[in-house]
Structures are given as structure tokens and as C-alpha cells.
């Protein structure tokens, strides 16, 4: 790159735009100064390596950078926002069962203290690719997160895929030219996740879908994967002399600039080369090679080729030792590809291994059996430098210390101001049947069966609590429970694990509380299936607009603080996470931004999967209890949106109380006192009772006098606040249940009935009397009708 070291600032900016590096001026000048010191201009490959290594996608420079936050007038300084919030909570909690956190491709926890197995969990976003090519974007998102699990430690076996999406409302309306409609994005993403997961033979089970105007041009696609691995394979270490081996698909021009692309806003001219198409069958071959080679100990380290391709993967593995690579040895799709393109290409389904020379023969043999391409690219040489050749031509020669430690840090300003609370509700009345029907048909509440049935959640044979349960298989579950015996081979060991998610629109009002709501929902969902929540591990996936806007960053920082505080109070550490910025679009000069969005994924062991429970009512005459006090507030609720309430009231989270209730309830579930449990979330109490009634039995509930004093009927029926669980107690064990729950917040609210109607009374008057079949029909068919 001629004249780079002599370039003026304005010329650097021009070069940055021309080559699509997404670097800012401070970073460009840092790079220029480095090459001035070396006394030569950089090569294209060197600048591409720096651009991708320093991208937001790879270095998370906003979250890991200094932030000066004005929080409701109070000044708070962070030198590293991520370390002082998310990581700080994990460090303080110091849970011994967290085996590897924040340093590998995924977080790893013990399955149980005595088990030889560990669980790896990772969730990623693939938002920008899905906005422009939903099918390919979703496929490669799933492929990428599966490779994270294959490349964590010495490789874990993927046993569950998760999918959480945010789309614009489905209205079948034309939108701005150059953008896809939410319908197209929705269908493409679902098909992509389906095809990749199903073809890989990994169940896709836990997930959620959320719709909001703010996602119309910027959909969010969170894809996750859980893997299981022996505890003694949790750590990797590259050794000097190890061979750099690439296995998997050939390298082409696909996805050049994927890392830098996700560090920029989307506009009508976003580069088409950032689109990648996945090939699940190739990845399955890679998986099979890793499982065999890993069990034979044929490599010292492994990682996946994600954003940045070879550049990122080989650069990371060789960070401590240094590495010498000849990319002419790479297997190519197309011989016209330039050397720098080979180096940064994001072709899918590729993994990098550090293989001792004595073991390369056996690895080649396995690859041949599995029909998986393999090539040797170089050696981890102990030079502490990144040296890349194309034959005899040197195309990269960078100090690892500069590449990984040279990124300049600069403080960003953030401002957060809480909203004033208003709570104007419609006049109370005594018939809420129509409201319940409308809520059940709402796109954020109605059944996801249309999507879920496209996924194979039975493959591998380990799923215990499924997405739909009950005799009629139509009651949705709060969390998924997996029994990993097909992997462990131990049929007499009934240890398993549960996975759930939390996502809240409360961030439209208060992002600090949103973090509590999301974490609470995820943990509460685990409680509802019988997981051991004392060993809950969390993942955080933040998405927001351009963080250079101080208000965007303020909302983000408040949520990060909320995550820290909630994690400490719930005693649940974060083990991994990801942030995705620049989720905004510029159309005809107008900016369309997403609201700050936070997906919390949670995983916890289930001591005995035979004791796991589901949410449908099981037996007539069983007493129904509400665990937890009413958390009243219709802010950001479905009711509020549908019935034009002027309310932004959010219940104040009380984690200490909640966790006391959850622990007591977990014990009651373990003892077998509870027949069904369901959290109160979207649509509130009335919706939760309706869903629990969708199988064989319904309910008759009287909210009683105490509830009348607490709040308006609308708040009682439709609040979506934290901490509330409805449980069906085994009538014969009610006394034991009450004894076990002493000190917890519980109230008996009704009983299970063998009828076709759901009845709810409030202050002595019947406010809901609805036919279950009708409600079920509305709930089941609404999503399909909108597509």
C-alpha cells in the first residue's frame, strides 16, 4: 500500500472508506505510526489483518473500553465497562463449578461435582448478515456458533441449538427499497436455522421470537449452542513446533469483510460480499473428525474460523507462540482469489488445529475416512510474530504485541436518564374475555408452533422437557431439559441440564430494570422445570444501535450495571456473552435504530431428569398457588400496547425475595410436591393460566381480597413483572408443600378443574369465563395466519 506511512489524516480516512476497514482515525494513525517505526508501508494483507483484529466484532472495543457515564446526574467512570460489570460479578461470585469463563470460544461449567462431564454454552448474534440475506445469514450464524462449541477447549460435542429472534411486525406491507420485508426475513431466518441444525443432527429446541417496530430494518438473530465435553478436555495450549492445520471447507471469496461489516451501520449499499452461504454437510464432516481426533488426543489446540477467517483464528491461536504460515497451501474454491483475500476470507465450515508433528498422519487418516479436506498451513514457531507468506512472498509480518495490544483506547461518553413514571389505566370493568383473546392472538404471545415444528428437536434422543408438552403436545414449556446419556452412554445416570432464556421489552422504559427482568425470567423458567438454580450460569447478548451516540451507550451501560447487580443478587455468574452494535439503518437520511435489546440465556444442571416437570395442569382438584407476590406494573406489557394504556410503571425487582421463593420451590419440585409450574411473563397471569389449561384440565381461580387491595384488575391479570410463578400442587402433598414453603411468598388462588372453561374471579366477581378450545384456537393459529 504505497504512501500509507506518508498519508495525511484525510487520506487515511479515504483509504479506510475505500477498503472498508471500519477503523477510526485514532486507530488508523496508530497503524500508520507503527509502520513508520518499521520504516515501510504495510501490505494490503497487513492492513486487513489489523482492521479485522481491531474490529468491534473481534475486540469488543466499546464494551471493553473506558466509559464516562452520567447516570441520572451521577458521574460514574469505567476504565473497562465489560470487566467492571459482567466480569466483576463472575469474579466476585467465584463459583468453583465455572471451569472456563470469558477466555475461550464458549463458557464452560461442570455438569455436577462428581460428574466427569462439563457443559459448554455460547450464544452469538448474526444480525447484519440476516438483514441482507436471511437464509444464508441464519445458516452461517448457526454454523458459526456450532463451531464455537467444536472449538472450545479441545472440542465439545454439540447437543442443543437455541434460537431467539427479533423481527419487525409481520404486516405484509412493502417497505423501503433495498430492504427486505420482515416476512421475508422471518421466513428466511427460520428456514436457515432449521436447515442447518437439522442437517447437522443437532436438536434445535430452546428459543423465543419477539416482534417490534424497531426491528423492521434491523432484525436480531441470536443463535446458541450447548456442547458436552469431558472435564479433562476443557483447556488447550498451543506448543512450539505444532503444525498449523486447517480442516473443512475450501476457501473462497465468501464473506470478505464480515468482521468489519458487523462494525458498521447498514445502509442501502451494504456490501454483498459480506453474505455467506452455509454448507451443513461439510460442517458435519468437520464435527465427526473433531470428535474422533479429540478423543485420540491428536491436537493440542483448536479454534474455529469465524469473522476474519484464517487471520483471526491463526492469529489468536498463535498469540503466545508466534506463527509462520504459507497460505498458498490452503485449499481454494477459486484460483483467482488474491493472497490477502485467502487470509481474511470468511468461508464457512473451517477449523484450525495445532497438531504435534507425530500425530499429523493419524489426523490425515481420519479426515480421509470422513471425506473432510485437510491442509497444513505452517508452524507455531515460537517467534512471537505473525508471519504470513504466499509461497515466497511475505504478505504479513506483524508483532503479536502490536496486533493484540496496540489498539488505542479512548473514553466514550454515555448518558442515562430514567423516565418519569405515569400510570393511567383504562376504567376497570368486569369482563376481560375479549382482552384475553386479543392478547393470546398477539404476535408476541401466540404459539410459535409454526416455527418450532420445523425444527428437529428429537434428534440425538436426549430431550426430556420438549418445546411442547402434555398429552396433546400443545402446551409450551418454559425451558428445555436434556438428558445427555446418548453422549455419555450412562443410562443409569439421570443427571441432565436445562436451558432457558429471558428477554424483556422493559428496556423501552428502563434498561437497568430490563436486565433484572431478563435475568429473572431466565432463572424463573429454570425453576419451573426443576433445575438446580444454585448452579445457574448466564450468557449476556447485548444488541444496540451506534454506541458513539451517548444516549445509546448510556442505555447500554445502565443495562450492563443491571446485569452485574442482578447476577450478584441472584448468585448466578455470567460465563460468556457477546455484544452487537450498529444495529441501525439510514434510509433517505433518517436513522432507524433498535432499542437496546438484551437476551439472557441460562443453563443449570437438573439433578434427576425424571423429576423434571412441565407446565400443563395435570389433575382435577389440585390446588393452585401463586409463588411470589404480585409484581404489578403494566409498563412495556402486551396489554399496555394493545389497549393504549398510558403506563410505564415497572414493578421494582426484589431478587432477594425471589431467590428465596425459587429455592424453596425448587426443593418442593425435587420432593415431588409440584405437578406443574409456569412463570408469569408475556400477557400476564391470565395468559399464563390459559396456557396451563391447554391440555386436559383447566382452572378456577379467585384472586381474593388481598389482590383487590393491591392493584387494579388490569394490573392483576396482565402485569408481566418478575418473580411470579403459578404452581399446581399435588393435593395429597399440600401440607408438605406448605411446610417447605414456610417463609416464602405464596397464596392459594384456586384449583384445577376438569372442565372446558377457565374462570377467574376478582373481588368476588367473575372477570374471565372463557372457552378453552376457543382460546387455544386463537393462540395456536395466529402466527400462521400472519405469514
Amino acid at each position: 500500500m504505497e504512501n500509507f506511512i506518508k498519508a495525511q489524516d484525510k487520506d487515511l480516512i479515504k483509504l479506510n472508506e475505500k477498503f472498508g476497514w471500519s477503523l477510526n482515525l485514532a486507530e488508523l494513525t496508530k497503524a500508520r505510526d507503527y509502520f513508520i517505526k518499521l520504516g515501510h508501508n504495510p501490505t494490503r494483507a497487513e492492513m486487513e489483518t489489523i482492521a479485522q483484529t481491531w474490529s468491534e466484532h473481534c475486540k469488543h472495543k466499546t464494551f471493553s473500553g473506558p466509559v464516562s457515564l452520567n447516570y441520572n446526574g451521577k458521574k460514574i467512570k469505567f476504565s473497562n465497562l465489560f470487566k467492571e460489570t459482567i466480569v466483576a460479578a463472575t469474579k466476585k461470585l467465584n463459583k468453583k463449578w465455572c471451569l472456563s469463563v470469558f477466555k475461550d470460544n464458549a463458557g464452560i461449567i461442570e455438569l455436577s461435582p462428581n460428574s466427569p462431564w462439563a457443559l459448554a454454552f455460547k450464544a452469538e448474534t448474526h444480525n447484519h448478515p440476516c438483514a441482507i440475506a436471511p437464509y444464508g445469514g441464519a445458516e452461517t450464524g448457526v454454523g458459526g456458533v456450532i463451531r464455537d462449541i467444536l472449538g472450545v477447549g479441545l472440542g465439545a460435542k454439540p447437543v442443543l441449538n437455541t434460537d431467539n429472534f427479533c423481527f419487525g411486525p409481520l404486516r405484509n406491507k412493502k417497505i423501503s427499497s433495498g430492504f427486505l420485508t420482515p416476512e421475508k426475513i422471518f421466513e428466511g431466518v427460520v428456514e436457515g436455522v432449521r436447515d442447518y441444525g437439522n442437517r447437522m443432527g443437532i436438536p434445535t429446541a430452546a428459543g423465543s421470537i419477539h416482534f417490534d417496530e424497531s426491528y423492521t430494518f434491523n432484525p436480531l438473530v441470536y443463535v446458541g449452542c450447548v456442547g458436552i465435553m469431558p472435564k479433562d478436555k476443557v483447556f488447550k495450549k498451543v506448543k512450539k513446533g505444532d503444525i498449523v492445520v486447517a480442516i473443512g471447507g475450501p476457501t473462497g471469496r465468501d464473506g470478505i469483510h464480515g468482521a468489519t461489516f458487523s462494525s458498521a451501520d447498514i445502509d442501502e449499499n451494504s456490501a454483498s460480499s459480506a453474505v455467506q452461504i452455509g454448507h451443513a454437510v461439510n460442517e458435519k464432516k468437520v464435527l465427526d473428525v473433531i470428535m474422533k481426533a479429540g478423543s485420540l488426543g491428536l491436537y493440542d489446540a483448536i479454534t474455529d474460523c469465524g469473522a476474519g477467517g484464517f487471520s483471526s483464528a491463526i492469529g489468536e491461536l498463535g498469540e503466545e507462540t508466534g506463527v509462520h504460515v504459507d497460505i498458498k497451501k490452503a485449499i481454494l474454491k477459486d484460483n483467482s482469489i488474491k493472497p490477502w483475500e485467502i487470509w481474511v476470507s470468511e468461508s464457512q465450515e473451517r477449523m484450525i488445529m495445532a497438531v504435534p508433528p507425530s500425530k499429523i498422519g493419524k489426523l490425515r487418516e481420519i479426515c480421509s475416512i470422513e471425506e473432510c479436506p485437510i491442509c497444513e498451513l505452517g508452524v507455531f514457531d515460537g517467534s512471537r510474530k505473525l508471519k504470513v507468506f504466499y509461497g515466497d512472498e511475505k504478505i504479513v509480518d506483524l508483532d503479536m504485541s502490536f496486533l493484540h495490544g496496540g489498539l488505542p483506547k479512548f473514553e466514550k461518553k454515555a448518558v442515562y436518564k430514567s423516565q418519569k413514571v405515569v400510570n393511567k389505566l383504562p376504567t376497570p370493568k368486569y369482563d376481560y374475555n375479549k382482552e384475553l383473546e386479543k392478547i393470546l392472538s398477539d404476535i408476541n404471545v401466540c404459539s410459535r408452533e409454526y416455527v418450532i415444528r420445523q425444527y428437529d428437536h428429537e434428534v440425538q434422543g436426549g430431550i426430556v422437557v420438549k418445546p411442547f408438552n402434555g398429552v396433546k403436545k400443545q402446551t409450551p414449556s418454559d425451558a428445555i431439559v436434556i438428558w445427555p446419556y446418548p453422549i455419555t452412554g450412562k443410562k443409569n445416570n439421570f443427571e441432565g441440564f436445562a436451558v432457558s432464556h429471558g428477554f424483556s421489552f422493559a428496556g423501552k422504559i428502563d434498561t437497568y430494570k430490563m436486565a433484572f427482568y431478563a435475568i429473572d425470567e431466565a432463572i424463573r423458567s429454570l425453576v419451573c422445570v426443576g433445575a438446580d438454580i444454585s448452579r445457574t450460569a448466564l450468557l449476556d447478548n447485548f444488541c444496540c444501535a451506534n454506541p458513539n451516540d451517548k444516549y445509546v451507550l448510556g442505555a447500554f451501560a445502565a443495562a450492563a450495571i443491571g446485569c452485574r447487580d442482578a447476577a450478584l443478587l441472584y448468585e448466578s455468574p455470567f460465563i460468556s456473552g457477546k455484544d452487537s452494535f450498529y444495529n441501525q439503518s439510514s434510509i433517505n437520511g433518517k436513522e432507524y435504530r433498535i432499542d437496546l435489546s438484551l437476551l439472557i440465556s441460562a443453563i443449570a444442571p437438573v439433578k434427576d431428569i425424571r423429576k423434571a416437570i412441565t407446565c400443563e395442569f395435570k389433575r382435577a382438584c389440585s390446588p393452585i398457588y401463586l409463588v411470589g407476590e404480585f409484581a404489578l406494573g403494566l409498563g412495556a406489557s402486551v396489554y399496555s400496547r394493545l389497549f393504549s394504556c398510558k403506563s410505564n410503571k415497572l414493578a421494582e425487582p426484589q431478587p432477594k425475595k425471589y431467590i428465596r421463593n425459587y429455592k424453596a420451590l425448587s426443593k418442593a419440585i425435587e420432593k415431588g410436591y409440584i405437578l406443574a409450574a409456569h412463570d408469569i411473563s408475556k400477557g400476564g397471569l391470565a395468559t399464563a393460566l390459559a396456557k396451563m389449561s391447554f391440555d386436559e384440565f383447566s382452572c378456577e381461580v379467585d384472586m381474593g381480597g388481598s389482590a383487590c387491595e393491591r392493584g387494579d384488575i388490569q394490573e392483576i391479570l396482565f402485569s408481566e413483572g418478575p418473580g411470579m410463578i403459578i404452581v399446581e400442587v399435588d393435593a395429597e402433598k399440600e401440607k408438605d408443600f406448605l411446610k417447605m414453603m414456610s417463609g416464602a411468598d405464596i397464596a392459594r388462588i384456586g384449583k384445577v378443574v376438569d372442565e372446558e372453561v377457565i374462570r377467574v374471579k376478582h373481588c368476588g366477581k367473575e372477570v374471565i369465563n372463557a372457552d378453552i378450545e376457543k382460546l387455544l384456537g386463537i393462540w395456536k393459529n395466529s402466527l400462521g395466519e400472519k405469514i
Partner: protein
Amino acid sequence: MKIEVFTKDKFAKNEEKKLIKKISHFYPNLKSARESKLYILEGHYRREEIFQISGDVLSDFIVEEFSADSPRKLSGYTRVEMLFKEGVTDVLSQSVCQAIELAGFPKPISVKTGQAFYLAGLNARDACKAIKECFANELIHLVKAD
């Protein structure tokens, strides 16, 4: 050689219902709609081999039929093709190549996959627009009416 594989009429009701539901939001004049899978096969094959490949490898003879020597015959419909643009990875075509070879035929020189839509009640311009708006992603797809 362009091969079209399509659902037999007696099994095609759901397919048609889905297409009409999607397209008629924007184009209420649409009267009827059908679709086919397209395989553009390049290789040295005899005519009977093409028919064998179409019948044995590319279609399910219970619910599907094929047309290998000329486009599917549907009168009164506007035909629109949707194919990947040059340079876009076509994963399905790679599987098709492998499947043809595994079935004992010579390996194709190349295979391209795509879809053909048949829309009744719309002229070529509107039919093309309808497919672009409802199914295609113009970043990766090329859409053209016959």
C-alpha cells in the same frame, strides 16, 4: 439441459394455497399459482440418461413429476424463473452433483439450481415484481419472466 420438477396436480393444493396467500397480498389479481424446482444440468449425457437422472435422482415419483426437454406446460400462466446470481454459493447444486455421480452417472460439469413460478392473472412485469417482492433476495437472486 433444464429440468423442472414439480408436484403432481392432485397433491399441489397446499403449495398453491401458500403461494396465493403470499402473493395476493400485493397482487390481488392473482388467480392461480404453481412452482417447480429447477436444475440446469451441464454434462455429457444421452437423452435417456437425462430422463433417468430426472426421474430417479431429482424427483420423488410418488408425488412429483418432471419435464426434461421443454418447460412445464401450463397454459394461461406467466412463467418466472428465480436463479442464483453468478458467484453465489449454490450448496444444493454440490449435493446434486454428488448424488448424480453416486447414482452411477458421469459427474456433471456443472449444476445450477433455482425455482420457476407460474402465475395466472398477472402479466410478465407484475409476475416478475411479485416474485421479487415475495420470494427473491435481489442481492443473490436473478429473477426473469419468460
